[in-house]
């Protein structure tokens, strides 16, 4: 598969802070779901902002869909990337649901006649069309995130970045949003980067990259990453549920040669244990 994002030996630091990224490189393949995990302050969100040109690199280069991220390409880059941010409240610009979806279109000077059609289609695709006249104060956090996603879909991006987009939602809202993004990814052949410290969210990805203090310390399939639950704990992340079960069983003298299995494997193993004995 082709790389849609190439991050090449970048360095960055916030003003008056020490270097956060030093020579960091990372490629994102077209059409994959990449989970970027790490604790707060590890640089996950900063990386997303650098990719979208919201912050300016100190050195190195980033290309998105073949375009180098720079002043000249900034509009093109932002046409290709949609970001859903953490706080549902702070990305709702419009006075009502439909005005908010239209905001990005207005910025790109899309003619009015086209806008109405696009807004309707986008809101329907996230199931919020019947709420189009609501004001943000009368929406739940999950509904606001849906509107944010509609605002992104309206611009036909190639890449969606979820920047801890579900961390302020209740469990139900979280599952709803992830399912929605999965469906949209299929329908629109999107590339998804999900920045999260929710291990369950990461489990659904094609590939997981662990960021710790500005460095990529591992990248692998979810199963490969989760095979080292101790390591996840060390850098302040949670072990996935099956790993906790395996660990607890081993403390009771029931050991496996694997440190991690996914749900199905674990069930099969336990079944085997119970029937074999």
């Amino acid at each position, binding site marked *: 598969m082709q790389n849609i994002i190439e991050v090449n030996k970048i360095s960055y630091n916030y*003003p008056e802070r020490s270097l956060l990224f030093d020579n960091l490189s990372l490629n994102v393949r077209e059409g994959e779901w990449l989970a970027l995990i790490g604790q707060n302050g590890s640089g996950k969100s900063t990386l997303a902002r650098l990719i979208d*040109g919201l912050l300016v690199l100190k050195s190195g280069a980033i290309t998105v869909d073949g375009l180098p991220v720079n002043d000249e390409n*900034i509009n093109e880059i932002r046409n290709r990337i949609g970001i859903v941010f953490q706080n549902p409240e702070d990305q709702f610009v419009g006075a009502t649901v439909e005005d908010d979806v239209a905001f990005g279109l207005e910025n790109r000077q899309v003619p009015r006649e086209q806008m109405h059609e696009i807004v309707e289609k986008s809101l329907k695709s996230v199931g919020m069309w019947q709420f189009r006249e609501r004001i943000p104060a009368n929406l739940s956090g999950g509904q606001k995130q849906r509107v944010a996603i509609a605002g992104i879909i309206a611009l036909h991006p190639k890449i969606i970045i979820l920047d801890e987009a579900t961390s302020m939602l209740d469990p139900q809202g979280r599952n709803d949003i992830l399912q929605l993004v999965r469906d949209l990814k299929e329908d629109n052949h999107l590339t998804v980067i999900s920045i999260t410290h929710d291990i369950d969210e990461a489990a659904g990805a094609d590939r997981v990259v662990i960021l710790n203090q500005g460095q990529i310390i591992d990248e692998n399939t979810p199963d490969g990453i989760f095979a080292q639950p101790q390591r996840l704990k060390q850098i302040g992340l949670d072990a996935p549920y099956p790993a906790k079960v395996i660990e607890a069983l081993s403390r009771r003298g029931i050991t496996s040669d694997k440190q991690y299995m996914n749900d199905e494997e674990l069930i099969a193993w336990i079944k085997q244990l119970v029937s074999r004995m």
Partner: protein
Amino acid sequence: MPRKGQTLRFNLLAMFIAIIILQTSIPLIGYIPIGPLSITIISATVVIATILMGTLDGAIVGGAWGVLTFIRAFVWPTSPLATIVFVNPVVSVVPRILIGVVAGVTYQALRKRFKRQSVSISIAAVLGSLTNTVLVLGLIYVFYRANAPQLYQVNIKELLPYLLSVVGTNGIPEAIFCGVVAPLITLPLQRMLKGRL
């Protein structure tokens, strides 16, 4: 790409206007009633905006307060004073704009002279607040001394001493309030915004 901080400045202005709308509609954070007086703390908001974002933006925030005062004098007046004097846009808007101007100019002049930031902010706040009071007083005098035509046709000439004393007595505690509170609020905010505007 927008100039660094331009969008932030734009949104900060929007937030300050939102806060002022809030302060004009919720007494608890807009006005402190003391006996028969009711001193406004909105002038402190204008001063804070001025020091954080500069004189021009402070004047804009002050102007927003002025326009709100003007509209409210018709739609939802809070005192007889408002119905009589603030229905005149010159009285309701100009002094508010000048809070920002005077506070901004004062702060720029003093900030290097005093080692402690809070001193220059405090002085700028007191002068800004007094500007409002003095100008409202002065403009009332100018406009109504001669019984100029006005909306409710109240005979203000006779009322003049009363109006002037109300505005005057409110003005002193207002200025003190501004001087005390503005630095306490501005300093943590400056810390938050450091280097981002």
